[in-house]
């Protein structure tokens, strides 16, 4: 029992030196379409990592496979050295996940939903109760704690999903489009929370379409298109002398020049 305990503590220490997320040769095919094409990605521990890419680039698919929600066709994923697909439960303990495009148990109230997520993670009721209240306060959801999630606005739903991802105090946060339809004030609050999380040693991965925000917020960034990483590294390395948005368009392509058809111009 004692020896087992020391091993765990040592493991925890070792894990912090390993990358928070390491992806090697990840492949996923949906029928004929290759969604993720032999993708490699390393997210250093303690980084605030931005994942950007056009629609259908494979961001959501990659993140789902990285967090144990979607089985890859090939490739390895490890979180702080724990191989995800051979130690699913151990890996999931380390990750907090906000998935884009999955439903919530929306006939629970906000407070019930966060409590449910906490209890499923195996925490005690007392700890869950304390954390759930803290999180609702932090995310300005206190007044809506007793409202069914189905009656929430889109932004509130995003925030309650974030609370569910945070409740078990993960070491790595994987957030798919966390700022979509969130109002500016709440978005700023969420950013503060994430900054604090990174400063205390945690790792955050966000996927987003908003280049401006990724450039300001993230210290690392990877540009993904057609299931591959086109560029990755620190934000300054990737963007070079230009803005991240210009660099992104340059890498991904597809920009059209011109002002549209003549009939659409009023003068």
């Amino acid at each position: 029992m004692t020896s087992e305990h020391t091993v765990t503590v040592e493991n925890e220490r070792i894990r912090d030196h390993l990358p928070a997320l390491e992806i090697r040769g990840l492949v996923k095919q949906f029928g004929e379409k290759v969604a993720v094409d032999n993708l490699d990605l390393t997210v250093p521990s303690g980084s605030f990592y931005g994942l950007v890419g056009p629609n259908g680039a494979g961001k959501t698919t990659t993140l789902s496979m990285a967090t144990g929600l979607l089985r890859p066709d090939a490739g390895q994923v490890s979180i702080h050295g724990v191989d995800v697909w051979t130690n699913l439960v151990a890996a999931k303990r380390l990750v907090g996940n906000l998935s884009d495009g999955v439903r919530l148990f929306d006939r629970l109230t906000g407070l019930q939903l966060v409590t449910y997520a906490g209890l499923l993670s195996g925490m005690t009721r007392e700890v869950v109760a304390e954390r759930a209240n803290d999180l609702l306060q932090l995310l300005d959801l206190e007044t809506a704690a007793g409202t069914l999630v189905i009656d929430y606005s889109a932004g509130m739903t995003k925030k309650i999903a974030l609370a569910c991802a945070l409740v078990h105090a993960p070491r790595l946060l994987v957030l798919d489009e966390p700022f979509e339809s969130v109002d500016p004030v709440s978005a700023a609050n969420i950013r503060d929370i994430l900054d604090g999380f990174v400063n205390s040693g945690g790792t955050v991965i966000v996927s987003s379409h908003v280049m401006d925000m990724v450039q300001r917020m993230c210290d690392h960034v990877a540009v993904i298109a057609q299931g591959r990483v086109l560029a990755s590294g620190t934000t300054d390395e990737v963007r070079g002398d230009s803005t991240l948005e210009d660099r992104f368009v340059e890498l991904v392509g597809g920009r059209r020049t011109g002002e549209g058809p003549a009939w659409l111009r009023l003068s």
Partner: protein
Amino acid sequence: MVATLVRLRFLLLANSLKRSPWQLIAVVIGGLYGLGILISAVAGLFVLSFAEIELARTVTVLAGAAVTLGWTLLPVLTSGIDQTVEPARLATFPIPLNTLLLSLAISGVLGVPGLVTLVAALATAGTWWRYPVAALVAVVCAAIGVLTCVIGSRMLVALTARISSGRRAREAKGILVVIPALLLGPIILGLTQVLSDVSDLLPRIAHLVSWSPFGAIWAVPADVASGDLGRAAWEFLIGIATLVVFVLVWRWGLALALETPSRSTLVKAGTRGLGLFTVFPGTPAGAVAARALTYWIRDPRYTQSLITVPLVPVLIFFYAGSNGNLAPLNAVAPIVAVLLSMSIYTDVSYDNTAFALHLQTGVSGRADRIGRVIALAIFAVPICFALAIASVWITNAWEILPGLLGIIAGVLLTGFAVSSLISGRFVFMVPAPGESPFKSKPGGGVSLMLSTFASWSVLGILTLPELVLAIVGFASGNIALGWLSLLVGIVLGSGFLIIGVRIGGAILDRRGPDLLAQLQKQK
């Protein structure tokens, strides 16, 4: 513009049919059904021309009023009118309100129900062919009557869309409809009884109805035929006034709907606190049970299975008990046990992609299975046992109670086991969260029926030992066999339940991500 909108209606219908052959089959069946009704209606109306004016009048007025009333009220109850061209979707286009009104009215008439009603209404001219003037009047009145039908349905939908746009109202309505639908048999039995009692009153009723907004227009040709022109004129005026009022109200409702298309629900703070989560133990399995039981209370898709519980005894009482033989009532508890214990075999499918939370948190498959079974068992076990005791008390057959309890215990425990196995392995096409519980996805009906049949067969085979013991006991009057059945039911059922939860949990642990991928596909 009118032609464009009418064409849009058919284009939308054609495109949705192209997507799902099942819906095409449904439309064809609906069309054949309509044709059958139509032919018999037209034939009946012609035959009526050989009857006395009084009888013809009674039939046309009552039938016309019933059709008009049905058109107006039915869509509100079922929310099932063909709203292929939904006014709210057209709100962004610059279409004058009156043009929109006209287009929606025309596309309303040009559906299967609209055309059937129109042809049947025009056939009333056949009833009066012996009185040419009345026949001519009948054609005009038929057109007005059908327009009143179609516009009446749109009007009430436009109005109630504002009242019952909230989620709760919509869900309550969806549930309420099923009760009359299931009780249709008894209701028809009762109605025919009442009607045959008052058949000599019918002409008087028709007389009254012909002064009402729904019946007036249908009475005009009869009064023209019998020469009572003054009365006919008044009835015609009432009919026209009804149509005008309907159009005006509809126009008003439609204008409102276009101005405020967003039907937002008021966000009210409901219950504070954790509800059932404080009742169950603070473990993963306890949390799953609390969540599942909350859903049994709050989700209409689950409420639908609960509603059948009180309806089973009612139906059995009506069909079997009405001739004085109460013995079939003893079957109520086992039937309810089958229905309830198998009701969670689509549980993960009902979760839809919200099931992702179970995967994210890494909850064990076994805790997931146990929680779902506990939530169901908490009310299913007491309900079934209470029903069993109540039924033997009513039928005064206490000697069959041990055997009956044996069957119930076996069915419940084994049913939980079978459900736990199936719901951890297969995804079914069920209504998504928030959809009407009665909405069936294209093709979903057939696959769900097959899987229900398969799983019920498995349940039947696994519970065979206690079933045979109990039934032999009933037949021979040997009470000891009943007690033995109870023992076998509990022991065997518990064994199956342990196996079902273990294997179901192991399958879930292994195949969770694949299950989620399937759920995502059907989203």
